[in-house]
C-alpha cells in the first residue's frame, strides 16, 4: 500500500482540491481560444502554458471534458506507422506517453502490453514487413514474427481462426500500450488549469469572427470573446467549425463503434489486432475486454449504435477465441471519426490567419494526444508549423502530396 494513500485515512475531510476550476464568466479576450476540451485540446492548452508560457487561454467545450472521442476510443497506443512522417510523429507521442503519469502525478494506467497486428495472408505479411522495416529504420521497436511467436504470446487463441483465416504471422510492436482514456483528459486539464488556463464546459461556439482573413474573435453560447488565435480540436465536429469560416477540408465523418464485455479475470495480456477479421481487442485493468472492428461504411454525423456491428465483431471474436461463446457483451457505443483520404491527420496553419486545425484524427487520434498537444502548441505559439507536422498540413491535398498511412491503420476501412 503506497504511503501517499495514508492521508486519505488520516484526514477528516477529503484532502483533494478541484482538478479543474469552474468559471462563472468568460473573459472579454484571450490570447488563444481552443475549441474542444478533449485530450487534444487540453494537451495543447497544457503545453502552451507549460512550454510556451502562454496562459491566457480559454478551452471551450460544448459538452464536458473528454466527452467526445477521448472517452470513446479503445485506448490503444502504438507507433508502428508506415510513413516516415507518421513513424516519427507517433514515436514522439509514445515517448511522451511513457512519462505522462509521472508528469501529471496522476495514474493513467499506462500499461505496456505489446501489440500484435495479425497477418492472415501473404499480402498482409508483406505490409507487416514494410511497416517493420520503416519502424526499425527510425528506431521503433517493431518486428515481423511467425505464427509460433503469436501462439506463445496468446496460447489460448485459435491460430486457424476457425479455419477461416489462418494466422501466418504478425507485426509485433513491443511498445504497444493501453491507458485509462478519460484520465488523460483530466491530467492535461488539471495541468493546464493549474497553470492558469480556463476550461469552460457547456460552452458552445456559434461563430468565428474573421476580418480581412484574420481571426478576430469567437462567438459562443455565453457571449463574445476577442482573440487572434483559435485552435480547432473537435474531431468529428470539425466540419461544423470549418463551415463557419468557409474553409474546405477533405474530411468525411464516419461512425466508429466499439463494445465491451463483462469483467473477467485477466487472461489476455497483449493487444491483438486482425485487419482481415476486423477485430482489435485488449483487456483492461478492470478485466473488461474492449473490442473494436471497422468504420461504418457510410458517412454519418451521429453516434448511434448498430446491431450488425456487435453481430459481426462477436462472430469474429469467437473465430479467434472460441471459448468466449458464453462471455457476455455489456455495452456498445460509437464515436464520430473524421477521416482523411490518406489516413494521416490534418494539422497546422490554414489559409485563415490565426486559425489552426488539429483534425483528421479518424481512428488514430488517442495515441497522438501528447504529440499533437506538443506540436500544435508550438505551431500556435510561433505561428509556424512544427517540423513534425509538415507532412500533415491541409495544403498537402492541394499539392497532391498525400502522406499515405492507409496501410498502418489497424481498423478496416
Amino acid at each position, binding site marked *: 500500500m503506497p504511503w501517499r494513500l495514508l492521508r486519505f485515512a488520516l484526514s477528516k475531510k477529503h484532502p483533494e482540491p*478541484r482538478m479543474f476550476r469552474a468559471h462563472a464568466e468568460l473573459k472579454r479576450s484571450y490570447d488563444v481560444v481552443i475549441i474542444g476540451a478533449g485530450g487534444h485540446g487540453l494537451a495543447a492548452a497544457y503545453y502552451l502554458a507549460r512550454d510556451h508560457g502562454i496562459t491566457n487561454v480559454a478551452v471551450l467545450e460544448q459538452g464536458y471534458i473528454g466527452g467526445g472521442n477521448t472517452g470513446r476510443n479503445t485506448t490503444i497506443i502504438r507507433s508502428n506507422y508506415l510513413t516516415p512522417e507518421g513513424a516519427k510523429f507517433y514515436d514522439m507521442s509514445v515517448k511522451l506517453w511513457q512519462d505522462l*503519469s509521472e508528469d501529471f*502525478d496522476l495514474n493513467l494506467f499506462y500499461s505496456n502490453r505489446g501489440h500484435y497486428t495479425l497477418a492472415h495472408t501473404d499480402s498482409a505479411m508483406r505490409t507487416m514487413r514494410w511497416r517493420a522495416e520503416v519502424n526499425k529504420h527510425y528506431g521503433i521497436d517493431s518486428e515481423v514474427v511467425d505464427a509460433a511467436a503469436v501462439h506463445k504470446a496468446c496460447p489460448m487463441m485459435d491460430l486457424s481462426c476457425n479455419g477461416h483465416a489462418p494466422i501466418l504471422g504478425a507485426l509485433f510492436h513491443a511498445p504497444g500500450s493501453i491507458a485509462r482514456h478519460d484520465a488523460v483528459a*483530466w491530467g492535461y486539464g488539471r495541468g493546464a488549469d493549474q497553470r492558469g488556463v480556463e476550461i469552460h464546459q457547456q460552452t458552445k461556439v456559434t461563430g468565428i469572427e474573421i476580418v480581412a482573413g484574420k481571426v478576430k474573435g469567437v462567438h459562443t453560447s455565453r457571449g463574445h470573446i476577442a482573440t487572434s488565435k483559435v485552435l480547432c480540436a473537435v474531431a468529428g465536429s470539425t466540419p461544423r467549425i470549418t463551415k463557419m469560416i468557409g474553409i474546405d477540408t477533405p474530411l468525411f465523418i464516419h461512425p466508429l463503434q466499439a463494445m465491451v464485455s463483462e*469483467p*473477467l479475470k485477466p487472461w489476455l495480456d497483449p493487444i491483438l489486432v486482425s485487419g482481415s477479421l476486423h477485430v482489435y481487442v485488449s483487456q483492461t485493468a478492470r478485466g473488461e475486454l474492449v473490442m473494436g472492428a471497422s468504420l461504418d461504411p457510410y458517412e454519418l454525423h451521429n453516434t448511434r449504435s448498430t*446491431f450488425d456491428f456487435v453481430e459481426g465483431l*462477436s*462472430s469474429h471474436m469467437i473465430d479467434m477465441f472460441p471459448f468466449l461463446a458464453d*462471455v457476455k457483451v455489456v455495452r456498445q457505443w460509437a464515436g464520430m471519426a473524421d477521416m482523411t483520404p490518406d489516413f494521416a491527420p490534418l494539422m497546422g496553419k490554414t489559409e485563415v490567419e490565426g486559425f489552426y486545425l488539429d483534425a483528421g484524427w479518424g481512428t488514430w487520434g488517442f495515441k497522438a494526444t501528447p504529440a499533437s498537444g506538443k506540436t500544435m502548441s508550438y505551431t500556435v505559439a510561433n505561428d509556424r508549423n512544427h517540423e513534425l507536422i509538415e507532412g500533415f498540413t491541409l495544403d498537402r491535398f492541394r499539392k497532391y502530396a498525400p502522406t499515405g498511412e492507409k496501410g498502418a491503420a489497424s481498423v478496416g476501412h
Partner: protein
Amino acid sequence: MKRLPPQAGEWIDRGKPLRFTFEGIGYEGYAGDTISSALLAAGVRVLGRSFKYHRPRSVLSLANHDVNALMQVSSCFSVPNVRADVTPLAEGLRATAVNTIGGVARDRARFLEWLAPFLPVGFYYKAFHKKSQFPFWERVFRRTTGLGTVDFSARRKGSPKRYAFCDVLVIGGGPAGLAAADAALRAGARVALVDENPRLGGSGLYNLGGADGERQAEETRRLAAIAAAGAVVYVSSYAAGYYADHWVPIVTPGHVVKMRARAVVVATGAYEQPAVFRNNDLPGVILASAAQRMLARYSIAPCKRAVVLAANDDGYRAARDLAAHGVEIAAVVDLRGANSRGAVPPGTLVLEGHGIHEALADSQGALRGVRVAPLARDGTLDGYQAREFECDGLLMSTGWAGAAPLLYQAGARMEFSAELQQFVPAACPPGVYAAGRVNGVHGFAQKLRDGAAAGRAAAAQSRKPGSVDGAAPSCRQERAQSGMPSHPYPIFAHPKGRNFVDFDEDLQLKDFFNAAQEGFDNIELMKRYSTVGMGPSQGKHSNMNAIRVLAKILGRTPGEVGSTTARPMFHPVPMSHLGGRGFMPERATPLEGRHAAASAVWMPAGQWQRPEYYAVENQTREAAIRAEVAAVRGAVGVIDVGTLGKIELFGRDAGAFFERIYTAKFAGMKVGSTRYGLMLDESGVVIDDGVIARLGEEHFYFTTTTTGSATVYRELTRLNAMWRMEVGIVNVTGHFAAINLAGPRSREVLAPLTALDLSEATFPYLGAREAQVAGLPARLLRVGFVGELGYEIHVPASGAAHLWDQLMKTGAAHGIRPFGVEAQRLLRLEKGHIIVSQDTDGVTNALELGMDWALKMDKPFFVGQRSLEAMGRLPRKQALVGFTLDEPDTGMPKECHLVIESDEPAGRITSIAHSPAVGRVIGLALVAPALSKVGSTLNIRIDGGRMVRATVSETPFYDPKNLRQKQPETA
C-alpha cells in the same frame, strides 16, 4: 428460510426435485427455481462477494440485476458471470461465487475492506504510478480485478438467428404490456410480445397487496391467456436494444430473433430503487418487489421477521403480502410524514417520519436487525434517537426508476417529473409508445388503461404510419392518479459510511461528494471518475440515486442534472448469440475438383481459394513451380483465371462510359478487339486494372482483379447512377469460368477444339472473338499477361470442367501442364507487368508506374485525370522501376525490404524472384525519382540489417520487344 405451503400459480414444480452444489456443498431445489431461489429456500444467506471490498452480498432484486450474486457455473465446462437470480436450476449444476479468494464464506480478500479508508473514490489514479513500481502494482491489480473466469476449454458455439416481422411489438408482459397486446390484437394487428420472465404477467401476479390482489391476478391471467392465444410470445427473452427503424433484437434462451416491427410499445416497467443507508448491502436487505417475487413465484418466505422501509403504497402492499404468508412484521418504517400510511394488518407497528439509520450484521455478515431513527426536518436521521429492531429481513420500497434504456435509444425526449420523482417520456418518436411504469403510470388499473391506449395507438400507426401522433403522451390522467411512487431523497449519510449507492462498484455516498469536490460535478464526469453505473448492471440500481446525490450537491433538480446515455445492451448478451453461426463466404471456381485431383496446393485470394502450385511427388515447391514456368515458356500451360472479376456492359453509352472510368481510349476501338485499362480514383491513385473486350457496338465485356470485382462493380453502379448514362452493368463473375491457355504451343492445343480461324492475321494479339470451343459458347481474348502466345477462354461456368478436360486432352501431346498463381507471378514479373495492390499501394498514382502509354491524357475526361494533370506539373515522389540483383550470393531481399539512400528510406521492393529465363534475381521497386534511371544503384537493406546492391534495369526483363505473344502460326 423454508418453503411455504404449495399455492396456486407458483413457478416451482415440487414433483421434480433437482440436486446441485454451491461452493462445493450439495443442495436440493425444484424445477422452476432459479439458482438464487433454490439457495434462499435452502437457507443460504451469503451468495457472493462485492467487487471492491469483498463484502458478503446476496439477492437484491431477483430480477436479473443481482450483480453481487454472479456465479461461475459448471457442467461440462465452466461459464463465468452467470446471473444466479434468473438462471434456471438444472440437475447436477455446480456453482461457485465469482470474485472470491478461497470461497464465499472465508474469502481471503475480505481484508480489503479494512483498507477502505485508504481507498477513496478514484484512489487508483492517485498512486502506484511511479514508473519503476507501476508494473508491480499492475500485476497486483490484474490479480484482484475481474469477476468470473474464462474456461479455455469451452467449445465454440454459434446459435442460429431468426428474422421476424410484426405490426406491433410489445416489450414487457406485465399488466401494461398485456393490456397493450390485447388492445392491438383487438385492432387486428399482428402482435409479438416479449417478456424476460418464464411466464407472462409481471407484477400483476406478485404485487398483490392482500385484499384486491386476487382480482388483479385474475385479470392478469385473463389478459395473459389472450396474448398467448393471439400473439407471438417470447418468454425468458429480452429486447437487447432499440435500433433504427424499429429494429429490435430479441434475445431468447437459445438464439437471437431480429424483429422488424411497424410500431413498438415499450412497457418495460421500472427498476425498484434501493434506499441508501449504512449497511444497506447486507444479505437480507432486499427490494420489496424481490420479496414479493420470492413469495409468489418460488413460495419462499424472504425472512422470519421483517422490517419494511416504505415511502409509497407499494411498500404497504408488500407488507400485506408478507403478512398473508405468515411473516411477522416487526415494523413498517415510513419515510413520509404523518397521514401517509397505507393499510396494514392489525397490530402492525408503523413508524411514520422515520428512516433506517443503519442495518446491523450478524457474525456471518448477514442482517440481524436495524436501527430506526426519526427524521429531522432537513431530511436527515437523528442517530441518537435510534431504536433497534431485531429482524432477518429488511424490505425497501422507496421508489422506482423507469426501465427506459430502449426509449432513450429510440430517441425519446425524457423529462423529470417532480410529482412522480421519475424521468418519464415527454415525447416519443413516431411509432414508439411507452406504457405503464416506464411511462410514469403506477397502479394496476391505471397501467391497464395506459397499456390499452398505447396498444390501440400502435396498431393504428402500424396500419397507417403517421395516423397517430406518438409525440404527446396521452397518459396525463393515469400519471396524475399514480400517487407519489418515489421518494425524492431516500439517501442518508452516516458517520461510519458503508451506505452504498452502487452495489456493482461498491461506491459509498461520500465517494460522490468527494468526486464532486475534485471537480467531477456533472453526471457524465461523475460517472467516469467514480465508475457509477459502469458495472454489469449498468447503473439500473445506482444511476437514479447518483443523480439525486449530485442534484443535492449542486442545489439543482434531477431534471437539471440529467442522466447518462443508456446504450445497448439492455442485459448483457452472450457473444455466441450475437455472433450467430458466423458467415465467412468462401468461393470456389467450377474447376476446384480438377485442381484438387492435380494435387493443387491452395492459397487464399480474397474470398477465393486458388492453386498456388501443383505439388509433384518427390519434388520441392520450388522445383514444381520451376517446372510449371518452364512448361509455359517452352510448350504450353493452363491456369484457372476464373476468379477474375467479370463484368458486362450494354447500352448506347457503354463506350462513352468506359472513356470515363478507364485511362485507355475507347473511341476508335473496333468490335473484336481488347484494351488494357487502369482504373483510378479521383486522386489519380490506381485502384484496379483489367482487359476490356468490345464484343459489339453497344456491348463490352471486361475483367477486374480477383479482389476488385465487387468493389469495382459497386463503384461503377454508383458512377452510373450519378452520371445517368444509358448503360446497363451486370456482374457476371460467377457466371463465367475463365482459363488462360498460354505458351508457344497454345494455338496447336486450341485449334482442334474450335472452328475459329486462329491465324495471327485473322485473330491477332489483343483480339477478342466469340466462338464455339469444345462445343461451348466461348469468348476468347488474346492476352499477354505471362508474355507468351495465349488465349483467355471464357465459357459458362457449367462448361468449365469439360473445357479443361478437352484442353488437357489435346494438350497432352504438346506437354501441357496446369500452372498456379506462383508461376504466373514470376512469369508476369519477367514481363514487368504490375499486380495492382502488390506493386502499388493506397497512394500510388498512375504517373508513378511508368505506364504513360496506358494514360490517354488527351481524352476529354476520365476519373482521376484532373489530379494526374495537376500532379504532372509537380515533381514526382516515386517511380516504379525494374531492377536486377548485383550479387545474388550476398543475400536475397524480400518484398517490402527498403531501399536506403543517404541513410534514409528511398523506396521499397514490391516484387522479387529468381528468373530462370533471365538467369538472375529480378524485381520491381517503388523508388525515389533520383534512383529511377536505368543503371542506378539501389542499396537494399535485408533481414539482419545487411545491405545488398541492385541495379535499375529496363523492363520487360524477358522478350523486351513483346514478340512472343504475337507469335504467328508455324506454316
